[in-house]
């Protein structure tokens, strides 16, 4: 017998009693609170992201510009260089040898003796004059006025955060100062003077490192994904390979740095802080990401495709390389781009293998000492000179733009080539 049937019949709930209505109100209030809490959590996370980006842009935007001083130059008689010397590759040497740097400093001393003369100019100001002369040798023959970059403290003061002394100098110079796009930020390498420091050296190092990483991680990752998904027998060895790949994807990146330090530098004696070692280390880190993405993409290809190819007489290799791989490629590429974006933003393992040196020339070869963009940001962030704060933020903006573009590309590829198998 059912117990409940034996008990006396329960009265229907009276929803109209004040107690019940209060209870319902309370429950609805709790519901609203909970919902608002959820919304608040989402908004808090988004707000943090927006705040972070806004801070970087606010601080970094001025890093893309430089303050320039109108400098009246009359180089006639001070810098004597024959026109033939200016044409060849030795022009830099010829102009430096002719005392251009001193001539520029002297011009500044003549033009602005009260405000500090040559001290107003950036260390790189004469280089700008040199490039202008190489571009137009006529500058040597007549008095001209050139806009040249100013020293860091003046630059900071003009942008609104200087010391009282430099603020006064800015006021005194008035209309002689102007603002322009800092091209050398994109074309220069690291320098001790913030007005000369640029990101091209680090960016090139990043590119070289990424080339090595991609050249190793992509083929190995795709091939091992194919093997594991399509051919591997189910046995203990395959399990071991699978477990170690999944495990590698979760190993902290700094451990890969230790591996690179001990194996590539310690045992194999490869060149310290070269892009090749960085690339190798990051390739080991990126490969598991590509394998996992690749396996997911390969599993998504329906078995009927394979069966159809087999039925027409294709060998196992032909089935995979003619049918499965092309169909899985968009998915694999998406995973690869995401893995490469992660590798591009990575800093810690590269610190371990010595890519943190001061490198004032962009690397030419894979074995040259190099640095990468995130490490450059790390190095600049340590710099106490105030001019580097805006450079750091500006470099961060560049890095974020590159990374978001890569991630956007991955999302685009996924949406564009996503195949829905029925």
């Amino acid at each position, binding site marked *: 017998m059912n117990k409940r049937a034996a008990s006396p019949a329960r009265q229907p709930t009276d929803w109209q009693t004040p107690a019940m209505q209060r209870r319902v109100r309370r429950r*609805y209030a*709790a519901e609203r609170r909970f919902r608002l809490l*959820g919304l608040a959590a989402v908004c808090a996370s988004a707000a943090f992201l927006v705040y972070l980006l806004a801070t970087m842009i606010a601080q970094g935007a001025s890093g893309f510009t430089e303050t320039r001083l109108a400098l009246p130059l009359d180089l006639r008689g001070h810098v004597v260089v024959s026109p033939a010397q200016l044409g060849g590759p030795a022009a830099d040497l010829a102009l430096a040898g002719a005392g251009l740097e001193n001539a520029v400093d002297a011009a500044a001393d003549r033009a602005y003796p009260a405000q500090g003369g040559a001290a107003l100019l950036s260390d790189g100001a004469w280089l700008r004059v040199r490039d202008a002369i190489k571009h137009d040798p006529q500058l040597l023959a007549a008095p001209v006025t050139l806009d040249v970059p100013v020293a860091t403290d003046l630059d900071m003061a003009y942008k609104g955060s200087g010391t009282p002394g430099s603020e006064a100098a800015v006021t005194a110079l008035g209309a002689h100062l102007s603002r322009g796009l800092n091209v050398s930020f994109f074309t220069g390498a690291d320098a001790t003077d913030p007005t000369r420091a640029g990101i091209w050296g680090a960016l090139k190092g990043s590119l070289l490192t990424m080339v090595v990483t991609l050249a190793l991680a992509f083929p190995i990752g795709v091939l091992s994904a194919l093997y594991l998904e399509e051919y591997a027998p189910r046995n203990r060895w395959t399990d071991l390979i699978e477990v170690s790949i999944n495990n*590698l994807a979760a190993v*902290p990146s*700094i451990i890969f740095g230790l591996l690179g330090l001990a194996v590539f530098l310690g045992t194999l004696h490869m060149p310290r802080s070269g892009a090749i070692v960085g690339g190798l280390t990051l390739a080991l880190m990126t*490969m598991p990401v590509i394998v996992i993405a690749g396996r997911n993409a390969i599993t998504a290809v329906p078995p009927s495709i394979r069966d159809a190819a087999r039925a027409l007489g294709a060998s196992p290799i032909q089935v995979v390389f003619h049918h499965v791989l092309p169909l899985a490629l968009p998915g694999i590429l998406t995973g690869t781009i995401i893995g490469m974006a992660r590798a591009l933003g990575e*800093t810690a393992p590269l610190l*371990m293998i010595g890519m943190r040196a001061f490198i004032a020339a962009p690397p030419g070869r894979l074995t040259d000492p190099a640095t990468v963009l995130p490490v450059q940001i790390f190095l600049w962030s340590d710099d106490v000179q105030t001019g580097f704060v805006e450079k750091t933020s500006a470099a961060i903006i560049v890095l974020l733009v590159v990374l978001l573009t890569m991630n956007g590309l991955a999302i685009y590829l996924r949406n564009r080539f996503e195949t829905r198998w029925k």
Partner: protein
Amino acid sequence: MSALALLFLIAALGLIGWVVARARAARFRSATTRRFSSLPQHHGWYVAMWTLLPALMFLAVWHSVAPALVTDAVIATPMAAALPPPGLDRAAILSEARNLAEGEAWGAFHPLSERLAPAYAAAQARYDWIATTIALLLAFSGGAVAFLRVRPGFSARSQVERVVMGLLLVASLIAILTTIGIVASLLVESARFFRIVPITDFLFGTHWSPQVIDARDPGAALGAVPLFWGTFFIGAVIAMAVAVPLGLMSAIYLTQYAHQTTRRWMKPMLEILAGVPTVVYGYFAALTVAPAVRDLGVALGVRWASSESALAAGVVMGVMIIPFVSSMADDSLSAVPAAMRDGSLAMGATSSETIRRVLVPAALPGVIGGVLLAVSRAIGETMIVVMAASGVASLTLNPFASTTTVTKQIVDLLTGEAEFDSAKTLAAFALGLTLFVITLLLNVVALIVVRRYREAYE
């Protein structure tokens, strides 16, 4: 001949082999109506393979033994009799001579190396010449032998495919090699460390100050307990106190309440948080969050409010972790069968009651798995703590005080100008080993928890 030119030459030979073999196979195919097991390109690949592989394998082996052979040849010259006995000096002179011979250095510190340089260059040139000849011979003869086998009845396809399979297997073995490499390098270096410092001192000692190591008792300054505590405090306590509520509530809101459009926009936005490089978070933590946290601590009347506080690093790390927690929670919430939710709603429960009493308990194993993975990620995170946490190891419960972590110490220990054999440098590897073991355990446990939970509903 330079190495690059040699490689190009071998590649060119391979290409020629491919074209010629393919053409030959195509010719005998067109002559009959017979059916063949291999396509012309299989024959092409077969010949190219035999041209390339032996030569490249020889070069790889040669590359690793040649420097020793060259050095031996130099030592055998009469001029080398003046060399000091084997030791550091001798190695320095020889390496200088090598740099001179290769044109990478212009001056020499030892006069002897300048005299040895020509001998070095000569030996190098001789061995290079030998290597080039052998490699080309191998490429040519391999290709020729393979070409002679290109006949109508020959099954080139099975041969080529066997090599491709081998290539695939080798590729997947690299993962194992990497794992072995990591474990071996950590173990070897840690073993050297534990010969100097007793393992009990390292694991249970409470004093960490690697800057001043007493040579008689190195273990006294290398007790890692404060580091483990700092790592746990920042990564598992503070970061999770930020990430778990925010991540879980975000996932609940986005899966249960949010409008479809909101979800489509907000979910990628949260994922961007995971895509921001950690060096950016570190810079942000050091520049913006840390001073704010210190001011807050001062305002609250905390006596030791540091500008390198555990709180600043932990909060920023927690924000970085939010997307991990929220996407794991998202997955496990959506995996709960709809019937359970519908049943609860049908009984008259409100949405929030359903979520709290039914969905979250049902999804709990998945959520816990996600949190464990997030913890493993947080304690392995380096740049935020390198830039925002201090280097001073202390056992403190005060979130405004400064603490340090394992990863921060690894970076500090290895970026100084220390020799490779000191207890200080080797300690970094012991810390790395500990970190590896802990994150491995966390990941394994997390995966087991998640997997067991998934099976429950399938």
